[in-house]
């Protein structure tokens, strides 16, 4: 492939949108001066250590900490008894959501996975704290446990929690509940043939005539596939430092949303959000594991209160492996009927999602929606069950449910194309979503639809750029022991939400200051989205400042940076607040200089009428302060969130204060898309393989910041590739403990695992349902990264190699020798 060039100009009509620039936080990052939670030191700071459960499920009968507490330097101990009862949630529309009795609280007397924190000790230094932990005696009563979802679904199988083994939302309930589900021996008869048993599921939907579709199909494939549980492995663990001052708690930790972590902490600590200050200028990666930080951050906060000193909790890599979250693995089965042209006539999807022991994850239902949108089956049924196990807690991970669904269907499409004699790009093209593409499930009897989809363009242009035709024509190619194969995969995910607030101040110095509640986890959106507002206002970027990373700095109501929401949601909010600022500038100018507001133009850092100099932004800001009221923040718009209102009140009088809620209409649900292409080379004598070339072609609407976009496309592709080439969990089913728990057992891809010349490109076609046209990108590349590698492998080696991911060298060697997949077809965590 030709080396990527940076010549392409995105958004030629814009000055800032689509242009590269350097974010203000970058200098600190490249010089080591950026401070993450663990880098803070405070006068008299104590360190705390956790005592983790050695058992996968147990009850703590008795804790004897006398010896530990008598040690010099030990200051305090915290157990589950010291935790405040979690508060109920009051939503913005006044609904009370009761705190779940099954929720995770940070410490426990009934550990439900190996590694769950039971207590914490604070001491003058870490060594003393660690030694104190060693001297604590705990009497455990072991309880039944389960690490494989299928084992708990068996008749008479153990339950992971005392009340049951699955999450389900009973009709009329406000939230999911733990219930018991057992399948029959007859259901399990399927396992003898290596196929996934399909017993009763609590959730199911369908549309179209499935039976008719299968009947008229030229080819029907029915495949079982297992996807891996992969830890998030953010390089920064969920360390946290906390202290109290004048009745307020100050917490430093990583997060994917500065603004929304404060209410989460308030809920966990059952205290007023006004009394919580959360500081997170830099976060060392999230990928879904730190949506609102981690509940464990309340441990140093409560210890700090007890010991009356700042407390640092450094989470080690090993601790992070247990408490740091992971993607739910799926045991899935899919029956797909194709016409002879390759069109999907019927698709029957069945998934079991391994949820771990805590909060219900949405991966299983999401996987059905993504498959429905991405391949547009004419008839489809989805059935799913979210099963609890005594394995570490899961959370959303980049493309939650999307990666799993795509990894299950893509190898089936690849196989179908081979069986039907169709080109791999062609079979995807005819099933590809387009425009306001519809998808299931039905909501009030109606199919849902996307805001837009230009994936066909991305697939076509990507195929050209990758020279798909040329590569496919000579593939699979064998030279000596080396075989090359090529793979293509489609991918999509939700690409944005709506309804958040923008907030900015035009200062009397003539600068524009954006208040950013977005987490700084490395996506650059914390800064990027505000360029959309600067563009509308016609202000040079050098005149703009961004305030972020500290809830005491008056931040607006902001989406969490999860599920690729931010670029879409917050460019909308940025656009809305820029329009509000423009309106206020026009009104101020008209009041001072005569005429009507609409006679005035805002550009070049001035507000002016034709033929007059008008006012500078600095002058207008001073005028706003004189006018007061809505102009300088003494009055807030009625429709913004209460968090934003409080921030507006605090900023009042600082200049022209603009604030607005994103009320723009939207027809459809926003999604982003990627077409991914990979070429691999396998050594059939060693089973080792390399990714030789890779291209991801994205349909993400308007490009806001090309460099950051490219970073996301390639970075999240690599995260997905990790799922194909080697990352997984391994458990000892007998003791319920993790086997491959060291970082080197389960390393994310390194520079050695990725092609030298990995490439990306984006269409830059605006989404018609959002004012800036931009959609999010974090999730979609992940499924494409994983599935394109899987498809390249089966292109090189045939369909009888793997029925699960990842595909390791030993998978390849043993399958090649046996002439069929040898790995266990169903068992989790092997």
């Amino acid at each position: 492939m030709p080396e990527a060039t940076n010549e392409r100009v995105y958004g030629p009509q814009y000055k800032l949108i689509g242009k590269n620039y350097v974010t203000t936080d970058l200098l600190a990052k490249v010089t080591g001066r950026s401070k993450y939670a663990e880098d803070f030191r405070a006068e008299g700071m104590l360190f705390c250590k956790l005592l983790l459960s050695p058992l996968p499920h147990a009850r703590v009968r008795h804790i004897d900490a006398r010896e530990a507490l008598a040690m010099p330097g030990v200051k305090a101990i915290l157990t589950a008894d010291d935790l405040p009862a979690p508060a109920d949630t009051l939503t913005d529309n006044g609904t009370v959501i009761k705190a779940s009795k099954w929720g995770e609280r940070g410490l426990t007397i009934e550990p439900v996975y190996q590694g769950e924190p039971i207590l914490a000790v604070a001491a003058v230094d870490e060594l003393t704290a660690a030694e104190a932990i060693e001297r604590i005696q705990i009497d455990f009563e072991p309880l039944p446990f389960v690490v494989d979802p299928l084992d708990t679904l068996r008749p008479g199988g153990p339950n992971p929690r005392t009340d049951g083994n699955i999450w389900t939302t009973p009709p009329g309930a406000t939230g999911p509940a733990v219930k018991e589900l057992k399948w029959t021996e007859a259901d399990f008869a399927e396992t003898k043939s290596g196929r996934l048993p399909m017993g009763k599921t609590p959730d199911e939907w369908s549309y179209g005539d499935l039976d008719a579709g299968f009947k008229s199909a030229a080819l029907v494939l029915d495949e079982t596939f297992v996807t891996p549980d992969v830890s998030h492995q953010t390089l920064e663990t969920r360390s946290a430092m906390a202290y109290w001052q004048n009745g307020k708690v100050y917490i430093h930790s990583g997060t994917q949303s500065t603004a929304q972590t404060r209410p989460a902490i308030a809920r966990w600590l059952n205290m007023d959000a006004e009394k919580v200050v959360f500081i997170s200028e830099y976060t060392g990666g999230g990928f879904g594991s730190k949506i609102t930080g981690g509940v464990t951050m309340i441990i140093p906060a409560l210890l700090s209160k007890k010991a009356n000193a700042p407390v640092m909790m450094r989470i080690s890599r090993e601790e992070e492996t247990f408490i740091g979250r992971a993607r739910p693995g799926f045991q899935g089965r899919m029956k797909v009927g194709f016409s002879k042209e390759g069109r999907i006539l019927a698709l029957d999807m069945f998934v079991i999602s391994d949820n771990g022991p805590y909060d219900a994850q949405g991966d299983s239902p999401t996987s059905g929606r993504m498959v429905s949108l991405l391949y547009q089956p004419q008839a489809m049924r989805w059935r799913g069950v979210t099963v609890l196990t005594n394995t570490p807690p899961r959370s959303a991970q980049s493309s939650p449910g999307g990666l799993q669904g795509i990894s299950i269907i893509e190898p089936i499409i690849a196989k179908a194309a081979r069986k039907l004699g169709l080109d791999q790009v062609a079979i995807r093209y005819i099933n590809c979503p387009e425009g306001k593409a519809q998808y299931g499930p039905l909501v009030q009897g109606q199919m849902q639809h996307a805001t837009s989809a230009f994936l066909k363009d991305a697939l076509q242009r990507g195929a050209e750029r990758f020279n798909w035709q040329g590569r496919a024509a000579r593939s699979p190619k064998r030279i000596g022991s080396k075989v090359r194969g090529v793979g293509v995969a489609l991918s999509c995910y939700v690409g944005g939400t709506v309804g958040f607030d923008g907030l900015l101040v035009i200062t009397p110095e003539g600068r524009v200051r954006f208040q950013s509640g977005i987490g700084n986890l490395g996506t650059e959106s914390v800064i990027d989205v505000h360029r959309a507002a600067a563009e509308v206002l016609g202000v040079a970027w050098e005149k703009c400042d961004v305030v972020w990373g500290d809830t005491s700095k008056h931040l607006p109501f902001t989406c969490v940076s999860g599920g690729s929401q931010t670029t879409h949601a917050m460019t909308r909010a940025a656009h809305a607040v820029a329009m509000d600022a423009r309106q206020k500038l026009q009104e101020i100018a008209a009041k001072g200089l005569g005429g009507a507001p609409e006679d005035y133009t805002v550009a070049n850092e001035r507000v002016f009428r034709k033929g007059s100099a008008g006012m500078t932004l600095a002058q207008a800001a001073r005028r706003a302060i004189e006018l007061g009221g809505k102009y300088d923040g003494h009055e807030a718009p009625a429709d913004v969130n209460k968090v934003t209102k409080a921030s507006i009140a605090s900023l009042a009088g600082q200049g022209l204060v603009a604030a607005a809620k994103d009320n723009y209409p939207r027809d459809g649900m926003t999604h982003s898309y990627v077409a991914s292409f990979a070429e691999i080379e396998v050594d059939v004598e060693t089973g080792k393989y390399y990714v030789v070339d890779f291209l991801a072609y994205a349909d993400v609407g308007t490009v806001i910041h090309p460099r950051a976009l490219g970073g996301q496309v390639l970075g999240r592709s690599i995260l997905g590739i990790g799922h194909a080439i080697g990352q997984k969990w391994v458990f000892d089913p007998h003791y319920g403990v993790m086997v491959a728990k060291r970082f080197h057992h389960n390393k994310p891809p390194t520079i050695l695992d990725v092609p030298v010349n990995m490439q990306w490109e984006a269409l830059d076609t605006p989404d018609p349902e959002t004012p800036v046209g931009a959609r999010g990108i974090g999730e979609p590349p992940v499924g494409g990264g994983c599935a394109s590698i899987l498809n390249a492998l089966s292109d090189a080696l045939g369909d009888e190699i793997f029925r699960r991911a990842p595909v390791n060298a030993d998978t390849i060697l043993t399958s090649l020798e046996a002439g069929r997949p040898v790995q266990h077809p169903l068992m989790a965590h092997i």
Partner: protein
Amino acid sequence: MSSKKDSELPVPPKSGFSRRGFIRGVGIGSGALGTGLLETEAAAAAPATLGPGPVPITLNINGKPVNLTVEPSVTLIDAMRNYLDLTGAKRVCDRATCGACTVIMAGKTVYACTVLAIDAQGKNIETIEGLATGSALHPVSKAFYDNDAQQCGYCTPGFVMACKGFIDEHPSPTEEDVKHGLGGNLCRCGTYMGIRKAVLQAAKEMKGAVKNG
């Protein structure tokens, strides 16, 4: 606390293993390597016993001697981060897997999580904090900056130091060299394309700087 002279300090074995050489060796045959190390150690002068309590040590960091008192079991990364407030290098795996703790010691890149602070005495230690001279960015930091070679930035200080160490040893690297030279560092955000470009840019610039005197 007075700083000891070199000769009074425990002499670390001269194993001749670089960090990456060591890791590679373990991968190939840890049995043989283990024996080799033991022999080398046995051949060295019997070291003075330190500890178990805290001992005063002197580290030469970024050209300045610093005195501190640490338990002999304290690693260089913990000494830097907990005793000296040098928090640029990160402790991520603490087990020689990720390179986030990389510093340059006696001209070699090392994992600071895998070096004892007491063994780091008498050697020149370069950290990210000492890289810039005045307000000018070091060419490697500059290249990371220019090529957006980071996302969350948590691996960046380690990567910057690893790149500097690598370019010092390989002033004209090929793309393949870069791959292998940086295989000991890990970026979860997957910024490898930016890093690769950054290394090539920095190598060019640093060569230019040497040439120009």
